[in-house]
């Protein structure tokens, strides 16, 4: 494999398959229709509620759905952890829909997966706690590993974020480039962007790119609650808590899910007669230098990222006719993003329909950018824009945006899909009609 330095003969990158799992829904169209009807995936988490967890709402995957997905994964998939199972379903669905053969068996295929690290949950910790000598401050590793109720010996293999990357590459015979991305909440978009660049340069013909996350757990909820990122219920119904761009937004609601796209060079897709769903027209994945919890409040860093993606696509701001915003529903993020949209699009910002999918599906962190890219592809396909649930009134900064509140038929030719991670890991993708 020998990636080329661009010489003007760049390869066009197209989308030929999409797959997704979120909440109780196991395909992209079901999610699109669900949100289009103004329905949410955010519900009370029964166990967290019972245990008195302060933020006991989430967009978790239904346990029965999860079990069905686990049962459906083939033996060849190997040991998969909670996120890996979701990744497997979404990726296999996208691959099957693309019409590619069961195995590519080519070094010109790759897998790009975004997934965050797991942390130990209470039951696992309790088993470990029995082997700590608190007086001496020592941990008896032998005792822990040898105990009858010791750890699942395949646990660490299951939960490593690259396990699913390797399993998918092996199963689909697409092992030319394997990347497991760790770019926080922007990782899903960045995985797609990286795959796009490899295909554009001619290094790959096909890539399976997406994200997976399964962090609606006590430990993760406690950690994100501790840092003040999660929205408190404050007496609101679960469905009303995530409210991107609304003046009363107060934090994000955590979610699970997985989403994948099959990307191909146009030449490869057309040669096999594939149905082309959309194009990846541009991408920027940049770091910034403000601080851990917030980007520049004037939106200048996010604006730079958006402009870089537009430049990469060879498009001007007036070419964008839909924005799928990162829109976490936190005060800081939505303020920065709204300011950036005003900066980049100026007065036109008021006329570009903006949607925030996290209002309905929560924030699935590393997966969120991939899920939103899948929904953006469907907006291009269906010429329709999804609503942002719970948006009733803007604040000073979010005013002047056309935040869509009901499903809207619209001309959609080029979508800007943003993902902005904690600590300034920023990603903008531009998805466009197949042409």
């Amino acid at each position, binding site marked *: 494999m020998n990636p080329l330095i661009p010489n003007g003969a760049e390869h066009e990158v197209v989308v030929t398959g999409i797959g997704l799992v979120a909440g109780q829904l196991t395909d992209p169209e079901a999610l699109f229709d669900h949100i289009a009807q103004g329905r949410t995936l955010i519900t009370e988490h029964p166990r967290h509620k019972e*245990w008195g967890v302060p933020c006991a709402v989430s967009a978790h995957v239904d346990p029965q759905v999860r079990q069905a997905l686990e049962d459906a994964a083939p033996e060849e998939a190997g040991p998969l952890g909670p996120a890996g199972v979701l990744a497997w379903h979404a990726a296999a669905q996208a691959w099957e829909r693309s019409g590619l053969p069961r195995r590519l068996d080519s070094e010109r295929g790759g897998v790009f997966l975004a997934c965050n690290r797991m942390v130990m949950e209470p039951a696992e910790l309790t088993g470990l706690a029995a082997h700590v000598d608190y007086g001496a401050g020592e941990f008896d590793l032998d005792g822990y590993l040898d105990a009858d109720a010791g750890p699942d010996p395949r646990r*660490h293999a299951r939960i490593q974020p690259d396990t699913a990357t390797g399993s998918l590459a092996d199963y689909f015979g697409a092992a030319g480039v394997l990347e497991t991305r760790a770019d926080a909440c922007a990782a899903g978009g960045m995985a797609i962007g990286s795959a796009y660049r490899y295909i554009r340069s001619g290094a790959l013909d096909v890539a399976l790119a997406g994200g997976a996350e399964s962090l609606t757990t006590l430990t993760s909820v*406690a950690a994100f609650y501790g840092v003040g990122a999660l929205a408190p219920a404050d007496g609101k119904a679960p469905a009303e808590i995530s409210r991107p761009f609304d003046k009363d937004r107060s934090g994000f609601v955590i979610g699970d899910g997985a989403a994948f796209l099959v990307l191909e060079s146009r030449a490869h897709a057309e040669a096999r007669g594939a149905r082309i769903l959309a194009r990846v027209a541009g991408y920027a994945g940049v770091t910034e230098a403000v601080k851990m919890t917030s980007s520049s409040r004037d939106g200048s860093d996010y604006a730079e990222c958006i402009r870089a993606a537009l430049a990469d696509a060879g498009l001007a701001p007036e070419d964008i006719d839909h924005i799928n915003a990162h829109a976490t529903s936190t005060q800081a993020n939505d303020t920065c993003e709204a300011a950036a949209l005003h900066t980049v699009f100026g007065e036109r910002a008021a006329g570009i329909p903006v949607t925030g999918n996290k209002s309905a599906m929560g924030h699935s962190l590393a997966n969120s950018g991939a899920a939103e890219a899948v929904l953006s592809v469907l907006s291009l396909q269906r010429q329709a824009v999804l609503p942002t649930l719970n948006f009733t009134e803007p604040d000073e900064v979010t005013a002047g945006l056309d935040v869509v509140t009901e499903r809207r038929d619209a001309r959609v030719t080029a979508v800007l899909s943003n993902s902005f991670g904690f600590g300034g890991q920023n990603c903008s993708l531009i998805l466009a009609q197949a042409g």
Partner: protein
Amino acid sequence: MTIRDAVRLTAPGLYTAAGTDPGALWEALVAGKDTGRPAEFLAGPWPETDTAFLVDDPDAATLGVHRRVLRTSEKQARMALYGARLALAGPGERGPVGGPGWGLYLGLPTVDEELLRFGALDRLHRAAGSPGEVAALFGREVPPFSGLSHLNSTAAAHISAAFGLTGSMAAYSPFSDAGLEALIDGALSVAEGENAAALVGAVSPKAHPLLFAQYEELGWNGAVPGEGAAFLLAERAADGAADGGPAARLAGYGRAFGATEDDRAEAIAQAVHAALEMARTDAGGIGWVLPDAVWSAAGARAQRAALDRVFGALAHRPAECTSERATGVLGPAHPLAHVLLALHGLAGGRRLADGGDGVREEALPAPRALVLACGVRGQVCAVVLEGVGK
């Protein structure tokens, strides 16, 4: 123009148990210096060693940051930040560092942790069976900034903030291949004009009781863990190494994947052949091999078989050396530490050869070094570095 001609690898920044620069590591290896320290948190007969290759946790003054940075980071991120600072010290003396053309490419480990402080585990043990009490304990005891500090990306955030990097970025995880993925993609970003310069780095996991459990379950062969960070700068060839420091070309790279143990030796050999081909050389053109510090028995067998396959027919095989006896196993940072050792050796026309009972220094017979990374799942990266002199 190819990546070989377009990019220079410069500005080594290395933080390991052997010191804070590649020269110190080189000397420690040659001298057989004992750089291990007692790992007091280990108990019982296993692992057989009670030492590990630990580094001091950098404080705010060392890192040149406000104390609050320490609250939103864990040791891994702080080691990375220090590695970045060491790497950027030279470039900082010859001109401004940071800005839109400066990117960041990182290999990051993911270590499963308890999140509760270890001291709280006795209360968890007592509360087990009462989910409400457990949840309340988590609410009280989970460190307040852990939602930030435990994200894989914390290291990237703090490095960007400290040095004003606002160019293109990527972060990969979790094993040694992630370090060379960062190098390859960082160098490509410069070759393709996406960045004017890319800070490339990787960090080890912090040594922690659960690291041992994690490695054990993934087939650990008993290799001793180490802590550290390895960073360098990928610059445009026209800009590189104006300070006269060591520099090298990324002459070639290759990737491959061996899903099963049976496939891995072949995958490693494929990756090496791809890197050699891109570097327009063959096995005889390599003067020095720096294999990965593979820490599973199966991985070590595969790497040995692959190197025998590639170099076995040569009358004079290139010397091999890993830094393991002075740094321990550094995870994603290990192959980048080897890249920095290679830069040091290529600049001086020297190499290190791992003998049975020590490391010896020799003249480098050919100005190219091969560095390998073999991920636990079977991901392989190989790079060929070529000296460009001082």
